């Protein structure tokens, strides 16, 4: 059986290997629309089965590319980047072509990361950060996460935040840079989010 959609994950989504997470997201939505059941652009070109296969190929590509860790592994396996431990995983693709620059030097961390009790919202995070006298710019510099996103996190602008997989990564970075326990801080913040609607349904 011939592949309906050939090529690597990037080609399947129609993006290049430097695409940012936002671009991955937009390209995925475009492809879903295009190969969707009610698409007229594909009508008469692919039969129902081919359309389904195209859609699952798109889904497969997206599942990998949306996840910074899986994307990094994939890039390494395809020879798009040299193998550097993806810690922290590149939350945003670098601007230049392959290879990606080495991750920034680890930020100096306080010896015992603090675990926050109870629910954690943007305001809580902001308070912790300000108490420690750390600016958003500094966090952005260390984590390579755009200041805009850090502001959205603190303002609880959930609708503007990226998909949960990315957000989790962002939150852990934020926590680490602020001296908070990364995993539990991210979990606490995430638990307040509305479940992210699955666009394939």
């Amino acid at each position, binding site marked *: 059986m011939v592949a309906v959609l050939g090529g690597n994950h990037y080609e399947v989504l129609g*993006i290049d290997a430097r695409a940012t997470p936002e671009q991955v997201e937009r390209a995925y939505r*475009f492809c879903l629309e*295009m190969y969707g059941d009610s698409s*007229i*652009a594909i*009508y*008469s*070109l692919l039969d129902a089965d081919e359309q389904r296969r195209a859609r699952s190929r798109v889904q497969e590509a997206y599942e990998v590319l949306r996840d910074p860790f899986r994307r990094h592994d994939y890039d390494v396996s395809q020879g798009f980047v040299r193998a550097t431990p993806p810690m922290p995983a590149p939350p945003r693709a670098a601007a230049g072509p392959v290879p990606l620059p080495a991750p920034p030097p680890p930020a100096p961390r306080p010896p015992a990361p603090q675990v926050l009790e109870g629910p954690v919202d943007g305001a809580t995070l902001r308070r912790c950060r300000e108490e420690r006298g750390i600016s958003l710019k500094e966090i952005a510099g260390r984590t390579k996460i755009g200041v805009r996103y850090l502001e959205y996190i603190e303002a609880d602008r959930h609708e503007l935040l990226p998909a949960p997989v990315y957000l989790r990564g962002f939150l852990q970075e934020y926590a680490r840079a602020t001296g908070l326990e990364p995993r539990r801080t991210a979990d606490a913040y995430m638990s307040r989010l509305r479940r992210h609607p699955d666009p394939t349904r």
Partner: protein
Amino acid sequence: MMEALPAVVPVAAARPRRQVWSVGGGKGGIGKSLLTAALGFQLARLGRRVVLVDADLGGANLHTCLGLAGPALTLGDFICRRVERIEDVLVETGVSGLRLISGASDFLGAANIKYAQKVRVLNRIRSLEVDIILLDLGAGTSFNIIDFFLVSDVGILTVVPEPTSIENGYRFIKSALYRRLRAAAPSQAVRAIVDSALDQKNPLGIRTPLDLLAVVERADPAAVPLLRKEMGAFHPRFVINQVRDPADAAIGHQLVTACARHLGVKAAYAGYVPFDDTVWRCVRQRRLFASAVPDCPSAQKVRELARGLLQGESLALTW
């Protein structure tokens, strides 16, 4: 007070080579004729000398789109040599820079003209002292229509956001491309493969030009680069007419993507024209919307389209 200007030798702005543009679409009633008329009008307004040609030999009505009465002499009179010179069937439209060669509504036989006649007609039309010759093609995918499309420098493919129209649009692309590939086929064997591809239910299982390439690859691998080159030079430009919302407009990008991935055809998205009450109200009054209501949304979009096509630009898909 005006200062004396330095003496400058006036240089005529370099005009690009005379071009043939055609407007096809594979289906009737999707706005090909209106688009041709409006595009011609805007091109003339942008300073180009334009001749519109109603090549819809069976259903000519481009004159009506322009608010003109059916002229006494038409392309049919030239085709069957009732008049000798192509200039004899050329009429003014009342718009400066825009002239018309009307269709052959009076001459049934003209709907089935021979290839040699087509070549003669086109050569004579090309000899006119103009910048752009704009052909309004009829509906369907007959050789008459496709041959005109294939000899054009710019082939515009009109679709409306409906499955029927898009289905016919793809069929148009495939028919045109197969005809082109057949003409370029270097051997009898390859020609036979192209011929069988024309039948959608062919035993070789060829459904798309990409399938065709795969079959040729097995039969005559040396022919593949040649066919690929022909495919690469085939560059239809989509215009979506009767767009009602942003999702309709976005279909243009999907069509281009689908053509590249599933047909191996490098198409472009030239632009779209909104569905506009002004358009059909003007049709009812036998006036061209582009000139009667120059500021209506569809007139503006056709103006953008004309500019973009002149510059060779298309709407890009960016993430």
